């Protein structure tokens, strides 16, 4: 019989799950708020997917173009989100981002500089002005290392290579602990706590072609869902337009939007700059419509409109797909991305060093002389755990969420650069919310753990090892990826999404019978098997929400329902766990605050002249 009292148990005020940008920023603030803080992360500290972020973090510092301010950043974010972002969150983000970026300098970050010695900012898709603070094309590494080097001195306890298996709740439904698996030794651990902050990132590993690493299996989404939290906007999965497409083993690896921000252009097999053919009406007045103007922008971005390569990611990704389908793709089945003919070799190596390195070493392509071949790759979840717009608390008391695993800031489509600033702004705010909760927590909330529940969680995890025979976890994962790639890709139909749902249901049996041979210590097959449950929940949620939304908006494109439908612009789709399975419903969006609506709907001229806002 399993004796739960033999499982190592530790106690903290708050547990932060995930140690990317959001988790680390949240942990730093939790420590600053005087909370005894634990960080649980699946990998070693400093290896989270934030290191892969390349282009920069968006903040209206106005260092490069002093016309920029929070209102224009807010407006860009709302329009990029196709008016589906949470108004208040987009406001908080735009207002807080500059200070969150500046404080990184006090912690050691070394951004690229302007001539005046200020933080330099670069252009990016959907951002009206140069807005992304950056370090070459390795901004994410700078961010995570800065937070790591600062954070380790703030008193937090870091549990590395430790997977959160289940959240534990008390009789009132409030969180009171986490059951973890220490991957290194294969031992379980219980962390008793008063609050939990989820910062686990997305679920890209549900698809075959993704920029995400093995960790991104929708853990936070499923953990929160399983204890009653709601999931929102999950149908909006961002396909980054430029992933590597060759060699096969790196298919999906990100090619930064910074290449286009620095002047790179997209060409089809006929050598045509095809993005001019795909400019949506909403952005027509702000986008160059001739090659001459787009080229002039490269030298003078104040007096010329931006090139169409810098349209929002959903537009560019769909355009590449359309070119390939029309038979005008590159030899490897994508588009050409050319910077070699736009900038000299020294400039490219200085501004895009890791892209140069990545193509040279992995694809044997020299990007200073030859064009890259790129295609869309599943990159980011706009949706995720639904949170209160001010406190970042979920529907489950004591459970907070921030970063990619949370919903609200990005709506139907995220602008590049708004992710790193999201991590900082909402990592910080989630910690403030959690600290308020812990301080004002009702005394009757006694975090007594339910040993029976824990024992059943442990048994279901160890069952995978103890089964005599069963399915191969790697092959089950491959089947799941094939289902999502085929049916819930960049363009979708109702029929495909229905088959995704039924094929996932059929796959459940294989998931339930999965078997990992070997012992419990560092058993990769066991870890793969344990990631299947969160991936199944995440995939089903994406498919069901995508089936319900009968329109095309942002990153969600339905071939059977073309174009935006005003009715659907009034609702978010919310997924939750019901008595008999997954429930999906429409939730009407509240009326926007009048001042924010006026800013979002104003013309640039009205905003800059001060006539609005």
């Amino acid at each position: 019989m399993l004796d739960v009292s033999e499982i190592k148990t530790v106690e903290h005020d708050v547990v932060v799950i995930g140690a990317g940008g959001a988790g680390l920023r949240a942990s730093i603030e939790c420590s600053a708020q005087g909370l005894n803080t634990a960080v649980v992360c699946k990998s070693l500290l400093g290896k989270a997917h934030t290191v892969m972020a390349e282009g920069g973090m968006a903040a209206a510092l106005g260092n490069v173009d002093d016309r920029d301010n929070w209102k224009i950043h807010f407006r860009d974010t709302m329009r990029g989100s196709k008016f589906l972002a949470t108004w208040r969150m987009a406001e908080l983000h735009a207002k807080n981002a500059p200070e969150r970026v500046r404080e990184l300098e006090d912690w050691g970050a070394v951004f690229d500089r302007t001539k005046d010695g200020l933080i330099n900012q670069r252009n990016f898709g959907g951002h009206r002005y140069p807005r992304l603070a950056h370090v070459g094309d390795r901004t994410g590494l700078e961010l995570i290392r800065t937070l790591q080097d600062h954070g380790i001195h703030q008193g937090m306890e870091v549990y590395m290579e430790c997977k959160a298996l289940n959240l534990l709740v008390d009789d009132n439904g409030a969180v009171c602990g986490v059951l973890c698996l220490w991957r290194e030794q294969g031992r379980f651990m219980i962390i008793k706590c008063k609050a939990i902050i989820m910062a686990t990132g997305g679920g890209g590993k549900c698809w075959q072609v993704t920029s995400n690493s093995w960790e991104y299996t929708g853990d936070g989404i499923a953990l929160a869902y399983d204890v009653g939290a709601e999931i929102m906007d999950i149908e909006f999965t961002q396909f980054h337009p430029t992933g590597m497409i060759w060699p096969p083993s790196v298919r999906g690896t990100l090619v930064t939007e910074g290449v286009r921000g620095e002047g790179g252009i997209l060409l089809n097999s006929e050598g045509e700059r095809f993005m001019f053919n795909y400019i949506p009406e909403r952005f027509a007045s702000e986008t160059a419509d001739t090659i001459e103007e787009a080229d002039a922008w490269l030298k003078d971005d104040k007096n010329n409109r931006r090139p169409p390569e810098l349209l929002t990611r959903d537009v560019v990704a769909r355009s590449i797909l359309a070119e390939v389908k029309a038979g005008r793709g590159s030899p490897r089945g994508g588009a050409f991305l050319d910077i070699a003919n736009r900038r000299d070799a020294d400039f490219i190596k200085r501004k895009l060093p890791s892209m140069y390195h990545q193509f040279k070493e992995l694809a044997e392509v020299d990007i200073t002389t030859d064009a890259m071949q790129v295609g869309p790759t599943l990159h980011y979840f706009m949706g995720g755990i639904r949170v209160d717009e001010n406190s970042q608390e979920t529907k489950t008391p004591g459970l907070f969420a921030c970063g990619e695993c949370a919903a609200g800031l990005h709506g139907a489509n995220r602008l590049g650069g708004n992710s790193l600033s999201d991590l900082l702004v909402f990592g910080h705010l989630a910690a403030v919310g959690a600290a308020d909760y812990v301080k004002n927590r009702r005394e009757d909330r006694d975090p007594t753990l339910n040993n029976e529940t824990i024992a059943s969680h442990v048994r279901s995890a160890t069952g995978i090892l103890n089964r005599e025979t069963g399915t191969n976890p790697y092959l089950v994962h491959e089947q799941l990826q094939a289902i999502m790639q085929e049916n819930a890709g960049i363009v979708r139909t109702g029929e495909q999404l229905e088959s995704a749902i039924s094929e996932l249901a059929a796959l459940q049996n294989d998931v339930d019978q999965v078997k990992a041979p070997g012992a419990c210590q560092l058993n990769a097959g066991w870890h793969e098997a344990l990631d299947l449950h969160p991936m199944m929940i995440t995939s089903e949620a994406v498919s069901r929400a995508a089936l319900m939304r009968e329109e095309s908006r942002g990153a969600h494109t339905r071939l059977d329902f073309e174009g935006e439908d005003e009715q659907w612009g009034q609702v978010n789709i919310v997924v939750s766990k019901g008595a008999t399975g997954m429930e999906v419903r429409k939730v009407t969006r509240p009326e926007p605050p009048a001042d924010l609506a006026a800013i979002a709907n104003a013309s640039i001229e009205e905003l800059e002249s001060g006539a609005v806002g």
Partner: protein
Amino acid sequence: MTEFTFRIWRGNAEDGEFVTYKQEVSEGMVVLDAIHRIQAEQANDMAVRWNCKAGKCGSCSVEINGKPKLACMTRMNTYSAEETITVQPMKAFPLLKDLVTDVSWNYEQNKRIKPLQPKERDADGNHRMTQADVDRNQEFRKCIECFLCQDACHILRDHNLKNDFVGPRFLHRLADLAMHPLDTDNRAAEILEAGSGYCNITRCCTEVCPEHINITDNAIIPLKERVVDEYYDPLLWLKRKLTGK
């Protein structure tokens, strides 16, 4: 598809051996891909660390045919199908299982280093630094913490002087701070205490760095000079003797 032969270390600290695997390899694959295929098809429980698969996170450090390398950035076409490819865990750190070692010692060293002690911001809330001021720091800050430099360093690898010497990774972390335009701390004592004197400039660390950071010339030698200036300058020594400071 070409068949390659791999010898991969299997086992933990108590017991282990090289196991031979045959694996089909296709165009463009790297060593980590081959390991993943073996893991999925022949050895489900084999342990290997990895994350980004693009040389940016520094997780998949191993020794391939005796050389410390990132498995994700080592292309299979740099080997011929006739040779056997030997993959083993980093030698400088305690083995946990298969290709995974216990690198926690490195995280302890980082904690020993005092974080940035920044000067005050300008009145408008900004810090000002020129690009030329930060170029050197940006070189060090490219570090992905793969710890291959630590693995290659004979002071750690062969002499195991881990209590006395923080290793090249953390010497250049110290160099980043010591040369940081915003840092107000005099780091000389910290550099000496980190064991900068142990390095005898064999450049093994610089050679294996996948980010091509010139650790020896740009970080370690300037740090050694700083220590010499501070502690072994005869004029300063005399001044200290006379003034008692």
